[in-house]
């Protein structure tokens, strides 16, 4: 097991290295850099000034040197400076992480705590009216884009209460904090909840047919014990995979949601930085997201082994 974890950690480093190369190259393949964008806006400018600025930012150097410069700094904890704000990239990124983390965490919590129980209920009552109703709701969850749902929620909120949740970086009460985050989290988590429900349902249907479920009933176990203690624990593995994938996918979903709800998280910041070709911000943010995804994957695999004793990672 220990050897496996070491090997996994090594593979994670290789993956992150690969991602760093890809994002670095892709960014520079995209036409235009920050200097072009700035000077385009200004109209005609002396090419010498442009070259000066490029030299100042190090954009005139060969791409390999630029890459080594970035990675070298990253390994020392030096993320460089934002081209736009000229502040250290770390200072720009760090305060935004908790905001997005809260949002993503709540969205995942929402999707798991709604999706899993509803999936179990739907499977247990397969073919009933309740099952059909839940499946229709989940289908709508999969079909509604989260930004559209977000807009609907905002419009409904305005027409019903005459106001809408506005982001406040320092909420006064926990209730205010909850509304600020919960509403967008639900808008973005609805889709994940729907997906989680569907996976839970199909996985449960499969497990409920197993012989050991009949054994549990033959012991005299109650329906609740059969469904949750015996069946769900076996059925939850694919659900965990999906939640893991959703956790990574969420970042993409958050870009629109953060924009719609005007939340200053990392997802919206990433899009803005991309528009300005703010390389230090984009590179480091993408690396941060990559680390999150790789770590979530690792956690999912570890959870597999923790839940199913048949899965043991060989040394």
């Amino acid at each position: 097991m220990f050897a496996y974890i070491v090997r996994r950690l090594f593979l994670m480093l290789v993956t992150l290295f690969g991602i760093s190369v890809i994002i670095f190259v892709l960014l520079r393949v995209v036409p235009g850099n920050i200097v072009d964008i700035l000077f385009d806006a200004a109209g005609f400018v002396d090419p010498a000034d442009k070259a000066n600025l490029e030299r100042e930012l190090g954009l005139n150097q060969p791409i390999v040197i630029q890459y080594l410069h970035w990675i070298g700094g990253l390994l020392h904890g030096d993320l460089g400076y934002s081209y736009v704000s000229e502040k250290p990239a770390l200072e720009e990124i760090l305060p935004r992480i908790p905001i997005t983390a809260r949002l993503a965490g709540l969205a995942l919590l929402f999707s798991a705590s709604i999706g899993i129980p509803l999936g179990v209920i739907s499977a247990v009552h397969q073919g009933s009216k309740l099952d059909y109703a839940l499946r229709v709701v989940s289908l709508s969850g999969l079909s509604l884009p989260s930004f559209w749902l977000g807009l609907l929620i905002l419009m409904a909120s305005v027409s019903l209460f005459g106001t809408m949740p506005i982001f406040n970086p320092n909420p006064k009460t926990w209730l205010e904090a909850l509304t600020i985050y919960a509403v967008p989290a639900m808008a973005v988590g609805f889709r994940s909840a729907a997906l989680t429900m569907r996976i839970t349902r199909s996985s449960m249907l499969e497990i409920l047919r197993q012989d050991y479920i009949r054994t549990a009933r033959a012991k005299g176990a109650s329906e609740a014990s059969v469904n949750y203690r015996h069946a769900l624990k076996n059925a939850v593995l694919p659900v965990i995979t999906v939640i893991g994938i959703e956790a990574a996918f969420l970042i993409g979903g958050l870009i629109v949601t953060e924009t719609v709800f005007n939340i200053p998280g990392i997802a919206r910041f990433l899009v803005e930085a991309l528009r300005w070709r703010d390389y230090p911000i984009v590179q480091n943010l993408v690396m941060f997201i990559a680390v999150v995804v790789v770590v979530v994957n690792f956690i999912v695999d570890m959870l597999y082994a923790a839940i199913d004793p048949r899965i043991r990672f060989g040394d």
Partner: protein
Amino acid sequence: MSEAAPPETVLDVKNLQTVFFTNSGLFRAVDDVSFSVRRGETLAIVGESGCGKSVSALSIMRLVPDPPGRIVGGSVTLEGTDLLKLDDAAMRAIRGNRISMIFQEPMTSLNPVMRIGDQITEAVRLHRKMSSKEAWAQAVNMLRLVRIPEPERRAQEYPHQLSGGMRQRAMIAMALACRPALLIADEPTTALDVTIQAQILALIVDLQQRLGTGLILITHDLGVVAQTAQRVIVMYAGKKVEEATVESLFETPLHPYTRGLMASMPAVIALGAKTDARLTEIPGMVPSLTNLPPGCAFAPRCKFAIDRCLKEYPPLDEVKSNHWAACWRAGEMLEAS
């Protein structure tokens, strides 16, 4: 053990009817079947796949999947209580406590993500007020009782770490943990290696006798029946076609289907005198239960069939003392033998 006292009846099944509602129509998986089991007695239920043996067992446990199945008639009286009249909670208190069941597939009948000890502990704690520590000790004791070596260690293990035979032993331990009055073993050795089969069967019979449990042994193997049971019922297409003591059945099988089963069993031939006899098969297949003929369901496959067999279903008559058969020609069979 008071051998002299008349053994009391543990289970009395009367006119049990279980039907399945399917897309191709309604079929009677168990049709008007009656039998009883006394304390410490072994009743074997014999028949081909699909004859209603397992559904009879599941009906007693009230575990027939509904839908599509439903028990539509009869009574199942266990120790004086009609199980078919109980509500779900009362039935749960009986399952695993007064009646237990061992299934055919030990490989898939244990929960793969729970330790063996926990699964037995659960069976105990569902029916006995015990701390988890006491229940665990009881689980280890049960594993020792079914002769699993190193029971303390095995209790900590998961099903996939045990062999098929060990898993079936664990199933037996779980089934007997609450000392049930009745144990139903549904083809308990079919999925096991031949070498293990005899061990498991001997274990079940030994424990049954020590604990005074009534046993219903469902099997298609007449060799197993000869070794273990006192009484036998033979089922065909959802109906009981013959019932007798083991001796009487093997001595004078009265239903042509029973004769066919015996002729197709190599083990029985080896036990009998005619060692040069050829194995014979029963021609044809079990009929579709949704479309049964009006007469005897076995008639189309029966070489003794007469016109009457195709038109009228024969009643279950006591052809010989304590030996019933549902065949128009059972009397002739008795005379001929």
